[in-house]
């Protein structure tokens, strides 16, 4: 979206640039809702990224394993438990209550992360 805006802006007149910038900022706000409700954690190099993820109540978090080695994402307090995710496999969980939810990979327990739900 941003990239396309920039490309169009490069061909357009300053007035149009100003208009696009305005349009751009509204569209970012509009896009903010779905992206907050579907946050992602990337598993890469034996770590969860971001290690601490903050999301609004009701958000669905999707973990994706980008390593060549299987991983899990399992709540330390037993709230959620992924199946074993092989390369490129995903796991998602929807957080319905505010709180801080630590989790780890049960295969490689040095890998830890947390989801903060506000």
């Amino acid at each position, binding site marked *: 979206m941003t990239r396309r805006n920039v490309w169009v802006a490069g061909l357009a007149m300053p007035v149009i640039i100003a208009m696009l910038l305005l349009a751009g900022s509204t569209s970012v706000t509009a896009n903010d809702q779905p992206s907050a409700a579907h946050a992602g954690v990337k598993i890469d*190099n*034996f*770590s969860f990224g971001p290690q601490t993820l903050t999301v609004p109540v009701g958000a669905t978090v999707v973990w994706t394993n980008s*390593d*060549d*080695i*299987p991983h899990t994402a399992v709540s*330390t307090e037993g709230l959620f438990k992924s*199946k*074993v995710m*092989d*390369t490129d496999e995903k796991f998602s969980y929807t957080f319905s209550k505010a709180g801080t939810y*630590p*989790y*780890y990979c*049960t*295969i*490689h*327990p*040095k890998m*830890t992360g947390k989801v903060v739900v506000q």
Partner: protein
Amino acid sequence: MPDKKQDLIDQQLQDLNNDGVDRRGFLKCMAWAGTGLVWTMSGGIPVSRAFAKNSGKDASKDASKGADFSFVQISDSHIGFNKPANPDVTATLQTAINKINAMPHKSDFIIHTGDLSQLSKPSEFDTLDQALKGASAKQIYFVPGEHDMLSDNGEQYLERYGKGTKGSGWYSFDHKGVHFVGLVNVANLKAGGMGSLGHEQLEWFEADLKGRSASTPIVLFAHIPLWTIYPDWGWGTDDSEQALSYVKRFGSVTVLNGHIHQVMQKIEGKVSFHTAMSTAFPQPEPGKAPSAGPMKVPADQLQRVLGITDVNYLVSGRSLAVVDSPLGDSGSSASGNEAAVVDPT
């Protein structure tokens, strides 16, 4: 020689007796050759004598000369893994088995130190079983790796490989005067921790050793190293110190581990620690990569970083000689990185 590893090795060597062996030079030589190391133990004292990178094909023959028995350790087969680091792990396991079968001496048994499979799938275990059927040694002892207990608390592993074992698969047995203990440190791992044996297993282990003569040679084997190699990558076992306190009174203790897909050793008093190469893919040296993930090496180099470990036991000296051999050591490279041994004194 990477500084960090050298520091680690230096640290590990500081409490060794001066027995005329330049261990530091010996280990440097080991690292330079890329694989293979040798040590023996006599009456609980490590007496490494030699390491020759150009020792030729008679190395393992020499090691076994006069040995009362020999066994082979293989590790980390990861059957089912098919990523670029090794698209055909079944083939390299087969090469390892061929190498065992071609040894000039007969191995009494094989110890597999875990990560038999990549994803604990029945088909992966089937493939492993099929390949191991071709091994000349018919008795195979297993301990599980974390990959073998992925989704079912290890039920399938226990059903196939852990009949008659305790808890998550630990057990002991005696062979020609040596007491072997297979330990499991990959079950019920805690967030933020490393490998773990757990209270129940530790209790069993202490009781298992009770009443045994201090002159009984002890061999411990488990998947994750029972010594702390690199905590950041979880390369260690949180409660290994307690386990090792139980073997302090014994004159000769050998600890065989896998998990880190490379050879490392440490000698601490009467306890010798040793990790084996994988038969599937290499992993980076501690701290030398962003993570411990599979390391891709050029295809023609792969068999130089995979291998097997041959252990020879001599009753007379109560000594064990450990020889690591890469899979591809038959004229594939000019450096001829085969390990050599050592007659214990």
